[in-house]
Structure formats: C-alpha cells, structure tokens
C-alpha cells in the first residue's frame, strides 16, 4: 500500500514537473511574440483565474472583467517574467490577487457590507439568504441540495474579511501550497496558515448563523 501511495505520489509529482516545463516553454515563446503560445497559455489558465476572481468578487460579470484585465496585464508584462524567482502559476496568481485587491478597494466605497437580502454569484435571480433561512421547502435531490449549498457558501464567502477570503480561496479552492500562497500574499507561511484557519472558522460561523435550518 505504501508502495502504491508512493507510486501515485511520484506520478503526480512527475506530472506536475512536466506541466511546469511545458508552461515555462510556452512562456518563453510568448515573450518572443508567439501568438499561438499565448493562446495556449490562455486556454490553460483562464478557467482557474476566472474561478479565483469569481469566488473573490462574488459576481460573474466582475469575474469576467477581472479575468480579462489579468490576462491583458500578463500579456503586456510577460517579457519581464523571471522564471528563477517563482513559477508562472505563482506569478499569474500574484497578478490576479493584486488586481482583486484594487477592485475590492474601489468597490469598498460603494458598499460597505453585503446585505443579507442581496443575491449574488452566478445564480443572480436566486432567493436571498434570508429567504432561504425562512424557506421550508425541502430539497428533493442531492445534487440540487449540493448546488444550493455551494451557492450559500459562495455568498457566505463574500461576508468574511478579504484577507481571510483570499487565503481560503487559494488554499481550499485552488489547492495551492502554503509556500506559494506566502509568495503571492507576501506574508510568512505561519500567517498564511493562521489566516486560512480563521477564514474557515469565520465561514462556518456565518453559515451556522444564517443557514442553520438548511444545514
């Protein structure tokens, strides 16, 4: 069993190394002006970047705009990327995170906190948080319940602090390791772990407070 685990882990590590080499080659070709390589990079990373933006910003429209901004910025600065300092994935995530912070600061002046009655996320016309709290309609199917729970978690994510939110998103949703997250957030690994735990606990409290009947 240990041998199998080691083999599986080894294959995962090899796949990751191979992936990193392919990406590095694509980045070099992009820096040289290869449009086909650029398209390949966009195809590989656009889904991940879009999810980070969507989970942080809470809105599909904002996520789309932010994703485009990320890739526009990367396209303009890809020639200055230094593969020795960090991986392309880490650098891309750093650019994304910086744009998300700027976006949050800009929107902070418009609204201080989300209302419990504000319906956000991809399901824009879904019931509000308070409506779900008061709802007595039982879910008939497990995948519907799962989808609804995901919507509730997504909305609850918007209610926790942005510092905790970004740490939680990068670790629990994007599966980045602590070292990479520390590079992206420019804080020590201990701080990263602390923020992740506090983010998870805060999320649980918000969900317990608003969705106790449904959960």
């Amino acid at each position, binding site marked *: 069993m240990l041998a199998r685990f080691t083999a599986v882990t080894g294959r995962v590590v090899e796949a990751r190394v191979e992936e990193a080499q392919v990406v590095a080659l694509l980045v070099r070709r992009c820096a040289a002006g290869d449009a086909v390589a650029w398209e390949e990079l*966009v195809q590989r990373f656009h*889904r991940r970047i879009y999810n980070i933006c969507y989970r942080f910003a809470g809105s599909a429209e904002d996520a789309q705009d932010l*994703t485009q901004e990320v890739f526009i910025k990367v396209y303009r600065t890809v020639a200055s990327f230094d593969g020795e300092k960090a991986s392309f994935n880490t650098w891309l995530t750093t650019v994304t995170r910086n744009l998300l912070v700027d976006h949050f600061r800009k929107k902070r002046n418009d609204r201080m906190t989300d209302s419990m009655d504000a319906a956000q996320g991809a399901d824009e016309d879904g019931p509000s948080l308070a409506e779900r709290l008061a709802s007595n309609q039982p879910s008939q199917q497990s995948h519907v319940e*799962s989808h609804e729970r995901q919507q509730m978690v997504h909305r609850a994510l918007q209610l926790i602090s942005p510092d905790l939110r970004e740490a939680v998103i990068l670790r629990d949703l994007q599966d980045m390791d602590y070292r990479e997250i520390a590079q992206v957030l420019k804080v020590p690994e201990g701080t990263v772990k602390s923020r992740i*735990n506090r983010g998870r*606990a*805060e999320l649980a409290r918000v969900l317990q407070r608003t969705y106790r009947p449904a959960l």
Partner: protein
Amino acid sequence: MLGENKSGMLCTEFDALLTEAVEGTLKGEQRLRFEQHQAACATCEALFAEVTKGAAWLHEMEDVAPPPMLVHNILAATSGVGQAAAKAEEARTSAWERLRRQVSGIFAPVLTPRFGMSLGMAFFSVTLVLNMAQIRIKDLTPHNLSHTFYSSQNKVMKYYENMRLVYEIESRVRDLRNASEENEREREERNRRHEKNNNQIQEQNQNNQPQPGGHQDFSLGQSWRWLASMGGREMYLGELAMQRREI
C-alpha cells in the same frame, strides 16, 4: 486563554498545528498532544470544530464554468488572434450577406413596430394629398417633372416681365401727367403775369399824358413792354430787371 497550558500544549501551539490537523497531515506525538489538548480545552475544541466544518464546506465547492466567449475576448484584447479568426470568418461570408448585415445595422433603429406605424401613417397622408391635388404618379417621372419645372419657370418670368412693363407704363404716365400739370401751371402763371402787365401798361397809357412840369421816367422794362403792347403781340419777355418809378 490562548496561552493556557493544557495537556502539555499551549493554545497558541494548538492554533499553529490546527491546519495540519484539519488536513490530516499531523503525525506521531504531535498529533497525540494535539488531541489531548483538544479534549481538555473547550475553546480549542470549538475552534477545531468550526475550522473543520468550514474546510468541509469549502471542499464541496466545484469550479464554475467561465463564459464561453471569455477566451475569445481575452485573445481579441491582447494578441488579436481571435480577431484574425473573426476576419477569416468574415471573408467566408458572401458579399450579399455582408451588405445585408450593414444595411440591417443602419436601419435597425427604424425597423421597429413603432416606426413602422409612423411610416405607414406618413405614406397614407402623402398619398391623400397627392390625390386631392390630382397629382398622378406618372406625373412624377423625371421628364414630366422637368417639363413642369420649366413651364412654371416660364410663367413666373412672364408674370415678372408683365409686372415690370406695367410699372414702367405707370411711371411714364405719371411723369407725363406731372409734366402736363407743370406746363399748365406755367402757362397760367404766364397768362396771369401778362394780364397784370397789360393792366399796368393800360394804366400807364391812361396816365402817361404829357403833364406840365411833369417828368416821366421810363425804365427799360416798361419800354419793352410798351413796345410789345404797341406791336399788339403778346410776348413773354423773360426775366428782366424792372424798376418802376411812381410819378
């Protein structure tokens, strides 16, 4: 509370190991001490429960599918690769299709039910007016229109010329009338003067008998008038300086 030592572990140490414990990577003695502290500390136990639940809910989250045109929009905004594909697609469409799209785009604001109703009413009104003015559609051909234009132009020119002629005639008649009136006035003036002169001459003739010791002084004008009266002709002698001395 965070610094309390329970089962050989501080709460701060418990907090530092929380991540590994939740993710199941905590091993050996550390895990044993962790669990002992968890059992002994209610606060840390509650914290552990909350963090575990939060992590579980987050791990249920699935990726969201991005919009289908996202890659295309990104490429269009950056390298333009998507634009090249769009241009190739455009080249494959026929010229008639491209023309149709352009025309549709221009007239799109007009091709709505509201404007259709307005256009229908406008067409009806124009038709009614043409009908009442007895203007037929075939009269609106270029040949007929140019004929109508030139004939109307001729009529206007003739009217103008007629009016000018009338004005000129009126002006001449007015001038002639004025001239005749002026001549009439002058003639009357001459006649009046002549009568006056005649009367004066007759008076002088009656009074102009040689008087003893008298002396008659004839001015030049009187001499001329006398000569004229003697000749029996009425002559207009013009403006002469006349000086009559009363005797």
